[in-house]
């Protein structure tokens, strides 16, 4: 439990010990903690046993089992679907790097003061509004089919390229808002202190504001990264053979939905550790905040 950072009594006790310098009085065996763990375990088992019981005894269970949990199809589709997931991994890794850079640039441009820079703020605001408003699938369609369709010489025709571009454009709009919230959360007195020492506006941003802002928004950035990973299946619409497209191909060949269950499990395996990491970071930040607010 502790490793996953659920913020139990042992966690907070630890931090008090570190900062307060009190003698270590942590009990080796905590009766009430053990009891609540047992209760949680039992209620979980009972709940899922009940759900399983209802499903297995439903009139259509054997048909559903054949369509979704077919052992033979499972064995055939895993060697197809799991390697296809590598395409998704490539997609979200390349796109995430581009997103983090582009979104930061947008957030910084949008935060710049001054009347002269109004056009910059206007353009970035329109960008963010536009890409948050239009469903991502449509952007993927329009770019993936539209731009190669123009037939301009030298323009890439690889759907993977447009998949990366579309996901980057859409997610940068969201992520730039996360960055911007972080920038605005840094008190103006920090920038004033930096400027008062003779640092330029860019240096104040680079060395004082952004390091604090980015540290604060790491959990929401990870959250958006998880969203991006799942949205990589949308690019199957423009012909990128990634995990979901591969599952569709397998489904068409076997008339069975089991390959989709394989896809779901692959995503669970990848995103759950990230989600736990995000929660742990949030809990850690909250503990730090509480410790510093004493």
């Amino acid at each position: 439990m502790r490793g996953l950072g659920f913020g139990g009594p042992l966690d907070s006790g630890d931090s008090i010990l570190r900062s307060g310098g009190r003698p270590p009085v942590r009990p080796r065996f905590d009766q009430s903690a053990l009891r609540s763990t047992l209760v949680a375990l039992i209620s979980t088992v009972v709940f899922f046993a009940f759900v399983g019981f209802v499903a297995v005894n439903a009139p259509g269970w054997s048909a559903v089992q054949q369509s979704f949990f077919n052992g033979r199809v499972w064995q055939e589709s895993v060697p197809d679907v799991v390697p296809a997931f590598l395409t998704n991994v490539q997609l979200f890794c390349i796109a995430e790097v581009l997103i983090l850079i582009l979104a930061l640039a947008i957030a910084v441009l949008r935060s710049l003061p001054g009347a002269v820079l109004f056009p910059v703020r206007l353009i970035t605001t329109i960008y963010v509004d536009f890409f948050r408003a239009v469903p991502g699938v449509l952007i993927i369609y329009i770019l993936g089919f539209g731009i190669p369709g123009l037939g301009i010489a030298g323009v890439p025709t690889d759907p993977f390229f447009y998949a990366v571009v579309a996901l980057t454009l859409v997610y940068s709009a969201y992520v730039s808002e996360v960055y911007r919230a972080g920038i605005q959360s840094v008190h103006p007195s920090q920038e004033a202190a930096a400027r008062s020492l003779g640092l330029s506006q860019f240096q104040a941003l680079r060395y004082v504001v952004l390091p604090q802002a980015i540290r604060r928004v790491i959990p929401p950035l990870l959250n958006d990264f998880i969203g991006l990973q799942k949205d990589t299946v949308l690019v199957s619409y423009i012909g990128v053979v990634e995990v979901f497209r591969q599952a569709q191909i397998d489904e068409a060949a076997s008339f069975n939905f089991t390959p989709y269950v394989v896809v779901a499990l692959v995503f669970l395996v990848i995103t759950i550790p990230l989600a736990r990491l995000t929660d742990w970071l949030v809990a850690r930040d909250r503990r730090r905040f509480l410790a510093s607010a004493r």
Partner: protein
Amino acid sequence: MSGLAAARPESSAAARPALEISGLWKSFGQLTVLRGIDLTVAEHEVVCLIGSSGCGKSTLLRCVNLLEPIDAGRILVEGVEITAPGVDVNRMRRRIGIVFQSFNLFPHMSVLRNVTLAPNKAAGKPKAQAEAEATDLLERFGLADKRNEYPDRLSGGQQQRVAIVRALAMAPDLLLLDEITSALDPELVAEVLNVIRELARGGMTMVIATHEMGFARDVANRVCFLDGGVILEQGAPADMFSHPREARTQQFLERIIAAGRL
């Protein structure tokens, strides 16, 4: 205004004042905070600004540091007009240190990095040189053992001393102190004020906004009472505190005495 000029001590008549403010006006929207401030500070002089909260002491200091754009008037530092159009603001600010009420240390940097950031990045000193000089300064102010700590591990008094060292690291011609003890627990005030006393002895030119009247009487060459956006009265601390001429000054000092601060 002409009557006040006579109250200036002889030192301000020296060749080139460290700071010269004339006809400074500053508003925030509808609220006019400064209504024509004239103030000349000689080299090595320590001037304390007193006055009730909201009288414009902090705004005046922030204007001198160019953190606030001014509406009218001129500010000269060492004879250079820093408010002239086209002036390199970053270069000017390096000559004017300011220390804030709320310390404003950079929480994500060690004490040493807080102090070396501006010498290294703004003044372009090599990192090793900046660190050596910073270490000397920290040692001088009894903070050598804190150089690798982060600000949240320090007491308020230590944080404010680091903030003073951070400003001094740029070797400013002029140091502005904006109510630097107001956010401190009472028992931590002395250690910070002692640093300022030492700086005053060392000849640092300082403009100090403060509510610590005992300290002002002790350290200032001259005390200025700000009221209604102007310097209503100024003079040597002994005269100001024992024989204030203006009725508003008398009222202010009576309130301070009633609060046990003088």
